[in-house]
């Protein structure tokens, strides 16, 4: 029997339940919710976004923790006078900061070359001492100054100016304090770019984007939902890293959590936008990975994650400061370490907003849905 021969009735679904009416933002809300659920159910995400940065912070924090300077390692060349030089050093008040080996001329020089010794002391026949040190190596310069000072004092030199010393390693000025905001910024960039880039290319490959375009879904809402899914993760990322800093490394957070979250939100949205743009046309995971690395590489190097960017030549400083990660790191450091109010950071925030908005608009325009 052919169904076409039946009388044509106006299509009416056998509805047990009344239809819903969806509002303007229902698509956006559901897209965001779906994204969050997917992330939550993906164990790798939890590791890379949350656990990995914590491990990195702990590892680096321990490696670069502020500890009393290492003892200078000094080689004294064997000879008739070596005994005297050694006892002078050992009888000085600072003797605990020297590690002394008596070595043949040859092995002392070899050890110096290999970085095993910071300083080689070679006594000569007339009772004088010859220092062999490398002015380009800070620890070598330090060893020479300290050793000379110790020997002269032990031999009876009187200082003409009375001096005294105060040591400082306050929270706020240590390496870990510098590091944690930098890691936070880098993590917001990494997880924003990878999170959005991979998700997009994956959906494109699965033809899911094409399927979505077959519905009345607003395309801008889709991209916006992806970007804003980053906000929720951002809050957790910042919370975890700051808690780690405060609890384990006794960091002091000077600005309110609220301002820090605002900076974080701008960073997350900014890199969400850059991630969208980077992945706006790629068809394969491999090609998007390459692009992502290309975009992020300059920021890993120049934006002062692990070390201050002040060391780069001053000609490129304006370029460095225009990078979004630089702006984000600077803003996070200023807020967390110095408590600088957001209003005084407007130029950094403006850089973040500009990158985010321009990337989002370009992505919306160039985006390939199929």
């Amino acid at each position: 029997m052919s169904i076409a021969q039946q009388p044509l009735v106006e299509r009416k679904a056998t509805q047990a339940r009344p239809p819903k009416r969806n509002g303007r933002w229902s698509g956006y809300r559901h897209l965001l919710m779906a994204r969050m659920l997917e992330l939550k159910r993906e164990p790798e995400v939890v590791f890379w976004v949350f656990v990995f940065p914590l491990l990195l912070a702990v590892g680096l924090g321990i490696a670069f923790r502020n500890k009393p300077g290492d003892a200078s390692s000094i080689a004294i060349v064997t000879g008739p006078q070596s005994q005297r030089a050694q006892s002078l050093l050992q009888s000085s008040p600072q003797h605990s900061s020297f590690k002394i080996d008596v070595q043949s001329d040859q092995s002392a020089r070899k050890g110096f070359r290999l970085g095993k010794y910071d300083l080689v002391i070679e006594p000569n026949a007339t009772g004088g001492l010859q220092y062999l040190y490398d002015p380009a190596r800070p620890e070598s310069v330090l060893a020479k100054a300290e050793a000379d000072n110790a020997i002269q004092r032990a031999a009876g030199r009187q200082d003409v100016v009375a001096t005294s010393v105060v040591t400082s390693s306050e929270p706020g000025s240590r390496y870990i304090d510098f590091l944690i905001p930098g890691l936070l910024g880098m993590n917001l960039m990494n997880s924003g770019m990878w999170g959005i880039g991979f998700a997009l290319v994956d959906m494109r490959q699965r033809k899911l984007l094409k399927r979505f375009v077959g519905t009345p879904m607003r395309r801008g809402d889709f991209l916006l939902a992806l970007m804003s899914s980053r906000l929720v993760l951002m809050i957790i990322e910042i919370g975890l890293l700051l808690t780690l800093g405060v609890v384990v490394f006794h960091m002091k957070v000077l600005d309110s959590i609220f301002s820090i979250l605002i900076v974080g939100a701008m960073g997350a949205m900014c890199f969400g936008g850059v991630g969208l743009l980077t992945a706006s046309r790629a068809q394969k995971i491999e090609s998007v990975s390459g692009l992502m690395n290309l975009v992020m590489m300059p920021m890993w190097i120049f934006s002062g994650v692990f070390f201050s960017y002040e060391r780069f030549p001053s000609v490129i400083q304006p370029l460095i400061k225009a990078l979004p990660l630089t702006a984000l790191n600077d803003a996070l450091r200023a807020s967390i370490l110095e408590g600088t109010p957001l209003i005084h950071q407007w130029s950094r925030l403006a850089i973040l907003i500009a990158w985010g908005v321009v990337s989002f608009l370009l992505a919306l325009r160039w985006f390939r849905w199929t």
Partner: protein
Amino acid sequence: MATAIQCRDLRKTYDGKVEAVRGLNLEIQAGECFGLLGPNGAGKTTTIEILEGLLEPTSGQVSIFGRTWKTDAREMREWLGISLQETRLSEKLTVRETINLFASFYREPRASEDVLEELQLTEKADAWVGKLSGGQRQRLAVATALVCNPKILFLDEPTTGLDPQSRRQLWDIIRSFQRGGGTVLLTTHYMDEAERLCDRLAIVDHGQIIAEGSPAELIQRLGGHHFVEFAVTGNSDGAALDAWRALPSVDSVREDDGMISLSVKEPHLAIPALLEALGKQGSSLQHLTTRQASLEDVFVRLTGRHLRED
């Protein structure tokens, strides 16, 4: 009856060289189930995606209920339900979440629970998509299309790769949508599917329609309604083929791999004559079957090839 889908002289050339669709005309009535039947690479997906407004044709016009994609795209999307040939829905969402997500894009979607019930997915509503069987996944894909309460349902190879039971389940769903007044356009390379499900179909090959009509009409046009297939001992040559053609009620003769196939109007006349002729020749039958002509035969007759060359 209103025209649901119409296209004129549709052409699509990929990258300036692959001519996937070469001048295709269609007119599909509201309430019809229309099928595009053709082998892989015939241009079915390209055609249906152009009609769905997902691909830009190189030239030609498309209108759906009198509207065109250029002017009314957003409105049209509200009442078209689409299932693509290969969409992989997110594996880590549940069936219900997926349907709710698609429902959220439409102004007035159907209640998700209704769609779940209709597609027999209620039991699986809280299972992750990644854990579904092939048939269940395909039903979910159709559910995402039906949740908008569409006027037209586009299905691109809805049952490819499914087991017989899942195929029948989907056929039932499609029929029940049609009974409610819906229009269906589907593509398939299964002739049995086209034969059972479609009111009318177009056979597509190399981007062109080579035959169009109801399955019964197409088969009728073949001449014979039955096929008598047999093999004999000894070589059959061209002269033998002519002898078979001369038998009563035989329309045409084909030889395929040593198997001779007679297209026959009335088997009760042809078979006795065949046996008699074999007796005279002194050769004996190795094999004899008769069957009704199918769309496969139509395709073979028109193109000299089989629909599925696997």
